[in-house]
């Protein structure tokens, strides 16, 4: 029974054991534990010290990183030369770090290097509402000169944006702003999602007609993530384009949502499952992000390339490779570089001399077989 109830007074029991050990060995057990605990503590401190070094090296790397295409990193930072923003800390917090954000980060860091900023680009590996809010709050607590944030719903991030502004931190939104962001008196650099979705829908119908000529069937609207207002709005735009086309041309396309996630193996299984349910019903796959790369992988494995229209958004390398090999018909770019670089430039003028920012639409660039070489060459600079 003493074993059963040991935890009701674990500390007392442990103390008794220590006393017994003390008596048996003739040396104080506490000193031994203290040494071990101190060793463990030292281990923790050593790990933390290594991280300090990481943090410092990261800042240095940012300050000396050349802008893609500049050819050299040796030019003196313009901001530093003018004496304006050198040394300012600017933090970019995204809702989820994934492949899309690589050129965004590069654009941000390139501008930061030119200004002599200490840049930091952070976000959780997978989206969770309160984790993102906490990261943003920690960024505010770091007292940077400026913050660039993604706002993927209409309320959750407003408290922290207001807190940042109240603390005198300049804020700008990038990539996704959600409805009513203007009430926060912040600008937004990113795509206008519904019109971009309409462009995507039009491209998909063009691809369906090219591949099969069919005038009916389901257009699957793929999503990599639930609860992301940007993807939902693109999906609305795609559905709107399909409805408009049906009305104008007497076709009977329908749309259907499919959440596939970002894990390729799981996404391919879901795509295959949907196809297997009714193979003849599907006219095309219209992604709201980079789902088309998963459709490409699946179609190649099943020898189904060219049987459907397939397209999506973003300029990630697998998507561009799919366009180059013909397994993807189109993608809609949103100039991710600008979402880092232009957002930083607008933030810089907010910080000093203090001009208010304006929103900047990073567009809906159609990339297909006609311009893929040029786009691939351009995007390779971010690899």
């Amino acid at each position, binding site marked *: 029974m003493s*074993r059963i109830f040991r935890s009701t007074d674990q500390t007392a029991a442990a103390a008794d054991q220590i006393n*017994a050990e003390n008596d048996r060995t003739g040396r104080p057990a506490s000193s031994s534990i203290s040494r071990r605990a101190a060793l*463990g503590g*030292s*281990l*923790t401190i050593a790990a933390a010290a290594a991280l300090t070094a990481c943090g410092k090296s990261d800042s240095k790397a940012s300050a000396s990183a050349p802008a893609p295409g500049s050819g050299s990193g040796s030019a003196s930072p313009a901001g530093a030369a003018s004496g304006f923003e050198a040394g300012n800390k600017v933090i970019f917090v995204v809702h989820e770090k994934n492949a899309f954000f690589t050129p965004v980060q590069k654009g941000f860091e390139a501008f930061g290097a030119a200004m002599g900023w200490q840049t930091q680009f952070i976000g959780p590996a997978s989206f969770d509402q309160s984790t993102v809010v906490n990261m943003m709050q920690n960024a505010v607590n770091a007292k940077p000169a400026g913050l660039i944030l993604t706002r993927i719903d209409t309320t*959750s991030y407003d408290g922290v944006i207001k807190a940042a502004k109240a603390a005198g931190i300049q804020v700008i939104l990038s990539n996704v702003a959600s409805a009513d962001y203007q009430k926060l008196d912040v600008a937004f650099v990113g795509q206008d999602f519904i019109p971009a979705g309409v462009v995507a829908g039009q491209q998909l119908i063009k691809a369906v007609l090219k591949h099969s000529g069919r005038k009916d069937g389901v257009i699957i609207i793929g999503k990599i993530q639930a609860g992301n207002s940007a993807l939902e709005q693109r999906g609305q735009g795609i559905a709107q384009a399909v409805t408009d086309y049906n009305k104008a041309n007497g076709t009977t396309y329908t749309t259907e949502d499919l959440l596939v996630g970002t894990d390729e193996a799981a996404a391919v299984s879901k795509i295959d499952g949907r196809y297997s349910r009714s193979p003849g019903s599907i006219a095309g796959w219209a992604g709201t992000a980079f789902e088309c790369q998963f459709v490409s992988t699946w179609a190649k494995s099943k020898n189904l390339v060219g049987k459907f229209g397939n397209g999506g958004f973003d300029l990630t390398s697998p998507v561009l490779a799919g366009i180059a090999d013909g397994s993807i018909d189109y993608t809609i770019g949103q100039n991710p570089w600008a979402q880092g670089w232009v957002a930083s430039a607008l933030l810089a003028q907010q910080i000093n001399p203090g001009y208010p920012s304006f929103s900047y639409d990073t567009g809906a660039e159609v990339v297909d077989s006609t311009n893929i070489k040029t786009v691939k060459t351009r995007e390779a600079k971010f690899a």
Partner: protein
Amino acid sequence: MTTTPGMSLDTEFDGDRAQGRWRRLIGAHEFGVLVATAAIFAFCALFVNHFLTSENLLSVAQQIAFIGIIGAGMTMLMVAGEIDLSVGSQYGLLSVLMAYSVTQWQLPVALAAVLVIGLGALIGMIQGLITTLFKVPSFVVTLAGLAILRGAALLITAGQPLQGSTSPGYHSLVGGNAVGSLAAQTLWMAAIMFGLGWVLSRTKFGFDVYATGGNAKAALNAGIRTARVKVICFALTGALCGLAGFILVGWLGSANPLTGNGFELSVIAAVVVGGASLTGGVGTMAGTLLGALVAGLIANALVLMGVDGNWQQVATGVLILAAVLTNRLVATRQAALH
């Protein structure tokens, strides 16, 4: 000057008592994580800019509130020898239901809160009953729960975030500042952890929980209804997920179907870093609080230190491992003493 024998005895007694207290402290399961927390705190205080400000420290306390609240239930469950992998999904689903019930069903906030907390308890109870009646390992049952409940959240919302109540009273109750910059969430966490800590360490039910996780057969022989204890712990954990959902929606004004995505790992990490054993019978609320604090301090310090996002993933793992090793070193020593 002479010393009377009585005075000498008193002094010796006081000395023994002080020594006993010290030995009890260093012998505690939480001593390792206490050392790790103190080490991280000291490092941050000395070397990290903007760390040692009241606003930042209170902000860290706010950030660990959800881990602390759900972690309190998870501590009891793990002490009882079980685990719940579905807490992140439960928290997500119940957040969504909280937002849905106040906006779509127009329920009063208090009634909606009772509904989600009760539903959380029911979900936990069902998982507990499946685990105990059918002798299915809880990690399997709750892994299935993780998928089912997340799917339910996505179905209810059609994948979109839901608006919550805009009631100022509700917001200030759970999302405002209680005193100065001290967030209401921090007080909720403190109340829950203190209350359940008391239950775990000072009541018959707490003894039963330790007994169930420590040696289930012996506990049964001693007349403890171990299955009932486990089901209650599951239900309690579910109810706390409901409470966390109620607080989250009041704080942020919306609920996302992906709320709590991967959150189960953060909660389990806090409980384990805090000294609880995955095999049951060991663990305390104070340890879990320290485990949550370690996670919160690390997340906060990495941003303040300017560590890049990708490195933060690595750094978090390294520091948690270091904290666990610190704890383990002490535990190993204790085992040797036993």
